[in-house]
């Protein structure tokens, strides 16, 4: 034991310097363009922000947030949205990635390209199309579709009962491209010899799935889950472009609320405080995910 670690120490000598060299540029970029703005936002969160001389007001911004009904409603909406979208998107992406694997190369490529398409096209342009899909008049695309099934036409984005679902459906059908690609790449990265060994033992497809694929994809899943949840908590564009948070705040997510606080009401200090509270919430959730899923994943 001691001898092994001695050998290691000798081999690893100088690694630290290399490591710092490797991360140097990343750190500089990070410090300038991420850390500095975050620290500055942190300071602003204790101020009543004015471009010409802000005023420190202690914890007023924070206490204002916790007293605000709208903030909690936005948190609830965000949670609902996240729970409905992220796990489903992961399962869909995983299933698609697995289903693609046995196909011929050209077919794989075609499918990957198709699924990736929504990510390629600009979100702004696509949201225009989606607005037309959700046209509330009986002639709208989705209304025609459900009309064939005998369901009366819906006021998709215009009614509180369907607005959230409409955003979720949009997410299911358009935000899996990246995860599919990452999953496929990860599947291709699994060492062939594992399967070979399993086949010698006569393992079935499901056994291989359970004992090889799932453990090997754990870091990838964790990555997608964490980034997916973070992304979902910050989701802003679709609600902004499609519903503006309405009707009656039924789709007001925290990301949108922060945006409104900052850019509609100019309460920049409050917006900074809101986003730090949000960051704390995301942090806790990410921590839990790491704890439960990341136990045997090496970082």
């Amino acid at each position, binding site marked *: 034991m001691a001898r092994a670690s001695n050998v290691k120490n000798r*081999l*690893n000598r*100088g*690694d*630290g310097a*290399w490591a*710092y060299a*490797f991360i140097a*540029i*990343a750190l500089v970029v*990070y410090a300038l*363009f*991420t*850390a*500095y*703005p*975050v620290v500055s936002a942190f300071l*602003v969160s204790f101020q009543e922000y004015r471009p010409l001389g802000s005023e420190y007001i202690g914890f007023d911004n924070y206490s204002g947030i916790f007293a605000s009904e709208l903030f909690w409603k936005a948190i609830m909406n965000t949670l609902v949205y996240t729970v409905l979208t992220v796990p489903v998107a992961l399962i*869909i992406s995983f299933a*698609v990635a*697995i*289903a693609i*694997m046995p*196909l011929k*190369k050209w077919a794989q*490529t075609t499918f990957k*390209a198709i699924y990736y*398409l929504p990510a*390629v*096209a*600009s979100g*702004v*342009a*696509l949201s*225009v*199309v989606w607005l037309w*899909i959700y046209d509330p008049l009986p002639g709208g*695309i989705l209304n025609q579709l459900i009309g064939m099934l005998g369901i009366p036409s819906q006021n998709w984005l215009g009614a509180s009962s369907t607005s959230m679902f409409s955003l979720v459906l949009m997410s299911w059908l358009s935000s899996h491209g990246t995860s599919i*690609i*990452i999953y496929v*790449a990860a*599947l*291709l*990265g699994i060492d062939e010899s594992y*399967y070979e060994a399993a086949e010698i033992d006569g393992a*079935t497809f499901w056994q291989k*799935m359970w004992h090889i694929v799932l453990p090997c994809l754990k*870091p990838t899943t964790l*990555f997608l889950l964490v980034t997916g949840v*973070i992304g979902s908590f*910050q989701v*802003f564009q679709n609600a902004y472009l499609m519903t503006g948070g309405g009707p009656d705040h039924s789709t007001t997510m*925290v*990301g949108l609320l*922060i945006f409104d606080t*900052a850019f509609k009401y100019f309460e920049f200090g409050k*917006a900074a405080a809101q986003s*730090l509270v949000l960051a704390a919430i995301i942090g806790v959730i*990410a921590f839990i995910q790491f704890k439960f899923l990341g136990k045997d994943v090496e*970082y």
Partner: protein
Amino acid sequence: MALFNNHLGNRTAKYTRNTILVILLLLFAMATIFPIYFMIMSSFGDPVEAGAVSYSIWPSKFSLESYKFFFAFSEYSYRWILNSLVVATVVMVSNVVFATMAGYAFSKIQFRGRNVLFAILLAAMMIPYQVTQVPLYILIVNIFEIQNTYSALIMPTLVTVYNIFLAKQFMGTIPKEILESAKVEGCNQFQIFVKIIMPLSKTVMAVMAILTFMETWNTFFWPFLVTNTMDMQTIQVGLKNFRFANTTYFAPMMAGATISAVPMFILFFSLQRYFLEGVTVGAVKG
């Protein structure tokens, strides 16, 4: 692919399985692709005002007028595409290089402060960008005074935490033994990185390249903020200029969106190779 049993012996069973898979994939693909299909189809419509959109699934006509209309809208339309290309390419290359390096360091090298530094990096992902926007703007415009330049468009995203995280997660699957044996053979970390890590990470680098390029290409808000003149705008900003308060030139907008998507397709298909190469390279050598 050896996850599936290719030597079941029964060709019909295999054939049936693949057919079912393809049908399911096709159905899902149709639902996915519909908005894009609609976008491309509409782009061949006439450049007409006032949201005249038909709900027919099939194109009623084929005309390139909307494309002409889009390019005629501004003398800078080609320049927008060029700007986007320059910015997205630089950001892509720098991310692939620096994020891979940092990802490797965080994943495979033991050094003092590794976990703390990585946690700090990760924490930044959790801050919504709306709030860093104004301080960042102040930094670029008021402190560095580089608004309306390529530097302003590029610098803030030279390396993103997302990419470092992605690289690190992927490299987690590279067996330690390979690196240790290289060390025993006397390679230093840089040699290991170039000779072993980079070839083994082609897949993740390609993924990173595509994602970063796409992200940068589609970014709207930041370029919009830091550019003041038409000739420095990117395609996304130009695309938005297209929209008017009460009337939307729907077909030309879709034409613009289609044009803006084309470079992405080219990139995607040209990097396909590396995804597939990943299969053979992924094996442990010696």
